[in-house]
């Protein structure tokens, strides 16, 4: 009896169901963001070294340059995503009971989201003013 169901692998049957849908999403995104942050952070550190001692106007012009503004926005988004994912694991490891843990994770994610938005709005404002 060769029904299509019998031909399916065990993985095929569970894919898209339950934890098979997104069980590794958090772990995977931590790796993806870390990989993206490697060149971005290196670029940022080199840029900051170059900007050491720069005047206010020079700094604004550097941030407002399209290349720098785009990479800064990418850096902000990825940094706070990676940071929230990492801090979430730390809080989940050490906080009990469940209610306090959930509240702390939600509060931490709210702070990360607001810090990311504040940084992004600052970059966009500098670009718009230039």
């Amino acid at each position, binding site marked *: 009896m060769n029904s299509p169901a019998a031909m399916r692998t065990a993985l095929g049957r569970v894919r898209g169901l339950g934890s098979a849908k997104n069980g590794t999403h958090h772990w995977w995104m931590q*790796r993806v963001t*870390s*990989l993206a942050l*490697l060149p971005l*952070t290196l670029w940022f*550190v080199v840029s*900051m*070294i*170059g900007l*050491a*001692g720069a005047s*206010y106007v020079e*700094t*604004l012009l550097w*941030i407002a340059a399209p290349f720098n503004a785009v990479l*800064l926005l990418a850096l*902000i988004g990825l*940094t*706070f995503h990676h*940071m929230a994912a*990492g*801090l979430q694991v*730390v809080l989940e490891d050490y906080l*009990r*009971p469940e209610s306090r843990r959930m509240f702390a994770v939600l509060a931490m994610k709210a702070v990360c989201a607001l*810090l990311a938005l*504040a*940084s992004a*709005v*600052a*970059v966009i*404002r*500098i670009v718009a003013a230039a």
Partner: protein
Amino acid sequence: MTTPHDAREALMTGRRSDGTAVRRPLSPHLQVYDMMQMSSLSSILTRITGVAWSVGTLLLVWWLVAAASGEDAFAAAQWFMGSILGLLVLFGLTAAAWYHTLAGVRHLLWDWGFGFELPTMYSTGRMVFAGTAVLTVLTWILALIFWG
């Protein structure tokens, strides 16, 4: 008896045959390990430097928001980061960032399936520590050259 906050506490509390509550003795935990081993030390430092870097991102937010706010706010941020305390914080942040970055690369290599053998684990661990020292000093030599 206190209200249990953690499901695991069900295993740690019990009753004597006369009905009185008792907290069962726990087996030794972290204190049985030598925390200066390469494996445990490099692991916990990855977490500590990650948390430190998270706090350090406040400087990035401050710097960007100050730059967008105006010359006075920017001057205040510049002043702090150029002060002794600011430079110490930035230096510590540089070291934490390099450690977390190199330890992160080590983690990515593990994810790739490389470096699980104990001798390799020890040598990559030593490379992370040495790399952190070299890259932190190099970063600041370059920063001071450009600043000067």
